[in-house]
């Protein structure tokens, strides 16, 4: 289960994500990120409330980043806890995704 929120701040669309990002929630997350990417020039996924991410969750984020790349939308993932960041780092995703310690605004 995940909870998603969306707000606009200083030109950024912030998609707040809370809960487990796994096979059950991956499609919902990808759809929310794609919708934000389709409607905004700058999108930040706030992962501060994410406590678990599986391979399906990582794929959802990668495909959202792919959509952002295709539309030349600035896309960043922010505020991961240490456990979730370790999963991203193990997969080498810091090399293709823009990952920040804090929200851009």
């Amino acid at each position: 289960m995940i909870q998603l929120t969306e707000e606009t701040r200083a030109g950024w669309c912030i998609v707040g994500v809370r809960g487990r990002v796994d096979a059950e929630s991956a499609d919902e997350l990808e759809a929310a990120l794609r919708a934000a990417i389709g409607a905004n020039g700058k999108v930040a996924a706030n992962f501060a409330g994410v406590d678990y991410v599986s391979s399906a969750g990582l794929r959802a984020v990668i495909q959202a980043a792919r959509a952002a790349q295709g539309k030349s939308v600035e896309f960043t993932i922010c505020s991961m806890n240490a456990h979730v960041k370790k999963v991203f780092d193990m997969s080498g995703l810091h090399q293709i995704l823009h990952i920040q310690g804090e929200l851009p605004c």
Partner: protein
Amino acid sequence: MLSMLEEVVLLAVDEKNGGLRSTREFGTAYALVGAVFFDLALARKIDTDTESIQIIDTKPTGDATLDRVLAHMASRSDLKTVREWLEEIFQQRDDLEGEALQSLISQGILRHEKSKLLWIIDVERFPLVDNKPQQYVKVRLANAVLSDDIPLTRDIMLVSIAEPCGLLGYVLSEAAMATRRHRIQLLCNMETISRKVTDAILGLETSMRQAMTRVV
């Protein structure tokens, strides 16, 4: 759309003579198991984290191979890690390859030929009837490696399965692979399943080298 398993097997078919190419035979078998896990993941039947596989839906997919593997997985709740499951399904490697070949034949992509070498040895070949699906797989692989764009999920999976069993070398030149080594490693590292396939192949090669050393 072909399954990941069918795409990997199709990639192993020599387009000139229909022979099945496998530079590292057991490595290819591990890759086939990895491809089945990817098919199940794409069908939202299993999910993985850094070490383990979780079965999330045991309802059949309609694909006989996937459903057999899924039913087997559902019956063995004692196995948890990706590595344990790779070794378990590895025992079914001949079925996986045979079923994928049969499916490719029934879809009109390959045909089956049997002949004798020196009137004694049975030789099986699978010449291409329609070369477009194999070309499509090759183009996707090449694009995923040679471009700096973020690839589609399926193409990340395909690269990460083709590379550790030596099939990428049939699509790209050695020079291209050397130039894009970092990119290939990046794509191979993204998925837990392919990391464990690579570990399994390396472990197997190490064991075989040690066994050969003892024999010599």
